[in-house]
């Protein structure tokens, strides 16, 4: 990698992608509230992975330090700007989820962005969300089995909705060629050239 720092173009592209996802996050909150209201926080856990899409997608595209955290913060910021009725929780969660995903990418020195790493980042994101909600909403007052079950559903959701779905979506996006000037797009072009030779 030539330049590992985020430049203006990276930042603006992360902003736009995360803003779009931020709007989807908001719609997902409505869906999540209905599911949580009916099935309780345990059922709501299955929805959690969706809110880790921004760090997974942006880190996978840009592959630089800070991309994951910035993406999640901007997605949270967009939710607040668009008028989220849970602004406070959204901002706290945005920070913890972003940090958690960022740590996973840092553990692999921002070099490996294969499916298992992305799934791990998604799971780290949802476990951070779990921990945050545990403290914010007083989960310590519930039976241990319920809390553990909630964590398990959130981990599964993080691996599938954030890791797997995020990668599969981004892989489809990179084929359009709009990402050719970013790390992920470059890798795709280099792969094609190799095949041509």
């Amino acid at each position: 990698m030539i330049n590992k720092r985020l430049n203006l173009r990276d930042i603006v592209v992360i902003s736009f992608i995360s803003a779009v996802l931020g709007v989807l996050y908001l719609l997902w909150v409505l869906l999540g509230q209905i599911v949580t209201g009916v099935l309780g926080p345990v059922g709501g856990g299955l929805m959690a992975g969706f809110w880790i899409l921004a760090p997974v997608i942006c880190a996978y595209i840009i592959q630089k330090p800070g991309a994951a955290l910035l993406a999640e913060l901007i997605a949270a910021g967009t939710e607040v700007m668009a008028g989220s009725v849970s602004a406070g929780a959204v901002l706290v969660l945005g920070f913890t989820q972003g940090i958690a995903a960022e740590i996973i990418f840092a553990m692999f020195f921002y070099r490996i962005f294969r499916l298992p790493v992305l799934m791990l980042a998604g799971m780290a994101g949802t476990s951070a969300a779990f921990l945050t909600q545990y403290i914010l909403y007083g989960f310590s007052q519930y039976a241990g089995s319920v809390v553990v079950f909630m964590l398990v559903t959130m981990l599964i959701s993080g691996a599938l909705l954030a890791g797997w779905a995020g990668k599969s979506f981004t892989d489809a996006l990179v084929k359009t060629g709009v990402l050719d000037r970013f790390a992920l797009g470059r890798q795709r072009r280099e792969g094609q050239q190799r095949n041509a030779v």
Partner: protein
Amino acid sequence: MLEELQTRDAFLQRVHPTLKLLSLFTVFFFMIFIYDIWHPLAVLVLTIAAIFFLGKVPLKLLLILLLPFALFGFSFVWLQVVFPEERGATVLFYVFHMPVALENIQTGVSLGLRAMVFASWSLLFVLTTSPVSLVMSLIQKWHMPPSIGYGMMAAYRFLPQLRKELVIIRRARQIRGMGSKPRMREWKEAGVPLMAGAVRKAERTALAMESKGFDGSRKRTRYVQMNYKKTDVWFTAGFILFITVVFLLPLS
């Protein structure tokens, strides 16, 4: 409608966004340690009163916005009754041979009310703070890098265009005979062109910013100055009083 509320001529709207944000996190912090009913109830009522009187937000709108959170809060109650960490001693009645204890209902209601307090303070922030002033004050007072702040604003301004693009994509699919109704597995087929459009727009925006001499440095003149004013002193004093009375002094 949101914009009209955010720019209304009222006390809360004039308070500096960073202070409101700080107060939001402070309330969150103090609420974490509360497990009784009266504290969250008092905070909830005071917050709603503050938004109504100091922010001039219609009470009806406030209650409608809080309604989904009442449902969300209620899920805490039944979960607490069915799966408590420790079942209370004062059994009120039985539901299908399952004892329902007073203590568990109390804890559940407390946690549910806590969720509603979080929602009401978030509403206080969101309904009285315009996005532009929020980002501007974060850049000017909390050292947010200008490139991130202005990038966010550009992205935010782009959002209304999304809906139009979605309509275009849908029509393009329709005209090619791919069906008019979006199905579950087609989320990618509509999502990919939508996101590709966003990325293209982002690159063009970044290029425009750079070509106009924007390099993300702080040394620049500003049209909107976000300085602290007298209102902010009043707000801070009032907030400290509120925290002291509700959380720091024992109520009972």
